[in-house]
């Protein structure tokens, strides 16, 4: 099953199992089924519960908030995460503040297609986790595997806090794996997981970057005899500090890699965390790898150099191992 199909399956089951669930977004109804086809066939199967919205991200979000507060479990699809920037206020100032201000939970799920694809350009490739994470209140998750895409979407709808669910566009069609949706055990929404065990250094990543990290770890093992542990954050807000620190305690060295812009955000937060709370474990300075500090370029060659990839991680790991 593909990453995108896992999302679609989860959506279908959520709609089937819970009358409170509905989906609202641009172009999601049939026969079209969404810019990326995540909702293909769903409006036909669940009439009146998969609704096309106008191009009004701010009000789409506000509407979801109202529906959630009235007992529903709305899922909003933004066509690209980049366009959720115009819903910033409703997301962070409204959805994010309701529980603290009123004591009532606000269970909306914002499905955000994130991440870069060659030729996508400055406004169809962004990672929104940093600007979604500064204000208190939102849960921000970024599944990197097919199973996580499925289970975490279900967990996101079950979560009573507002959840930003980051779906990586490149993984939609390019990631395929077998998984059994009937297994009972899967890690909780806020848990990081160790994707690959290792002794020499830890690579922390999330979303699409997890695959660069595991690919880098394989190269480090085979070509350089370096044993890298890969921690997939899964949830960037809140952070699973325990899993990160436990891995660091084992390896003493850490790289944090992200496709997002370099200032602030999860890479800074994890580096700060390990410096503050894992100082004694650190055998070397933490290393951050993030995108370049420019808008995401359109041209595939520039695009490829804009964010870290396997090679960049390998390179950083080789230097770190030498420290």
């Amino acid at each position, binding site marked *: 099953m593909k990453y995108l199909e896992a999302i679609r399956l989860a959506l279908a089951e959520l709609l089937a199992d819970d009358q409170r669930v509905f989906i609202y977004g641009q172009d999601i109804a049939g026969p079209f089924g969404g810019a990326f086809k995540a909702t293909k066939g769903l409006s036909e199967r669940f009439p009146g519960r998969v609704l096309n919205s106008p191009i009004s991200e701010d009000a789409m979000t506000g509407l*979801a908030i*109202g529906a959630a507060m009235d007992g529903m479990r709305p899922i909003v699809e933004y066509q690209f995460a980049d366009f959720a920037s115009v819903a910033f206020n409703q997301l962070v100032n409204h959805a994010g503040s309701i529980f603290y201000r009123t004591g009532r939970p606000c269970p909306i799920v914002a499905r955000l297609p994130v991440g870069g694809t060659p030729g996508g350009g400055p406004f169809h490739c962004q990672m929104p986790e940093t600007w979604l994470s500064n204000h208190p209140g939102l849960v921000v998750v970024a599944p990197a595997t097919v199973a996580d895409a499925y289970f975490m979407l279900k967990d996101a709808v079950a979560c009573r806090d507002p959840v930003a669910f980051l779906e990586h566009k490149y993984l939609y069609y390019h990631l395929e794996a077998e998984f059994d949706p009937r297994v009972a055990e899967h890690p909780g929404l806020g848990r990081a997981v160790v994707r690959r065990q290792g002794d020499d250094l830890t690579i922390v990543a999330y979303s699409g970057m997890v695959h660069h990290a595991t690919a880098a770890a394989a190269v480090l093992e085979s070509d350089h005899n370096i044993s890298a542990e890969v921690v997939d954050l899964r949830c960037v807000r809140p952070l699973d500090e325990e899993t990160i620190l436990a891995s660091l305690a084992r390896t003493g060295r850490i790289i944090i890699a992200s496709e997002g812009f370099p200032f602030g955000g999860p890479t800074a937060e994890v580096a700060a965390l390990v410096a503050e709370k894992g100082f004694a474990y650190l055998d070397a300075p933490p290393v951050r790898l993030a995108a370049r500090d420019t808008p995401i370029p359109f041209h595939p060659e520039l695009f490829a150099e804009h964010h870290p990839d396997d090679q960049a991680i390998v390179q950083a790991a080789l230097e770190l191992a030498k420290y």
Partner: protein
Amino acid sequence: MSDNAERIRLFKVMVLARTCDDRMAKLKAQNEVAGSVFVGRGQEALSGAAGIQLRPGDVFAPLIRDQAGRFGYGETPLDVARTVLGRRTGPMRGRDGNVHRGDWGAGLLPMISHLGAMAAPVIGVLLSRRLTGKQKPGDLSVGIASIGDGGMNTGALHEAMNIAAVERLPFILLVADNQFAYSTTSDRTYACKHLVDRAIGYGVAGHRCDGTDADACLATVGAAVAAARAGKGPQLVVADLLRLAGHGTHDDASYVPEDVKSRFGDCLQMFERSLIQQGVLDAAAVAAIRDEARRQIEAAVEQARAEPQPEAATEDWSARCERDLVHVRSA
């Protein structure tokens, strides 16, 4: 004209709101209140007329000048006093203050400050009702959101109103065109002849009334609410009035020109006069209503004053309800 029972109900709500606003302003002057105090002086007719049209199951998103509407819809003076005084016992528990109070469970939406932001949530509630099959055809639960001449120009409001129209939801946008957005005059705020002209652009019914005339407000808002209940889709109600106070108590409104002031009367005074002239109430009855309002407000203030304030030490500093999601870094 509405029946006299309804008119008296509105009058009582208006008096209670005016009394309450004045009392809160005085509390502020007495240094008992943190932050701002906003009053609805001059807007009581419109706001109250909306509040008393609503019934349980409806939804109301008031803004900063809607004390009358809030009372009309069922907010208690105690909730007001507790919130303004930041008491732990109030609906916002000291975490949010003044006009930001509300109760999602009661359909009284606690506003965020960003103007225009509360319309879409009302629409979301109404959509939710439709999706769950809770709406009774021909007698729908309705939602009202308030907005000012200034807030009409936010993108948020535009998007929400358009969605209401597309979904044909029983939504009423209640616009108080009170000539000013803070200090800014309408000619710097919009350029249409009258804000009701926006109705046609959204494809919704438009209504206009004299916001200083309580009977006109009752009739116009009543018609709009009835149309929404009947399934005729969104309704835009625009009332002309003047903010008879500063933006908040900190503002002396000295920028309001005399000729503007002379064009608008006080809705409460005028309503009282006509109720008396028409023999609906006599002076004694009016005095009794005033006394009762003062008594209620004073009782609420006294009770709230005696109640506990929030304490930092026992405060639950959590913005998320799913506490066990993971380890949260402690502040």
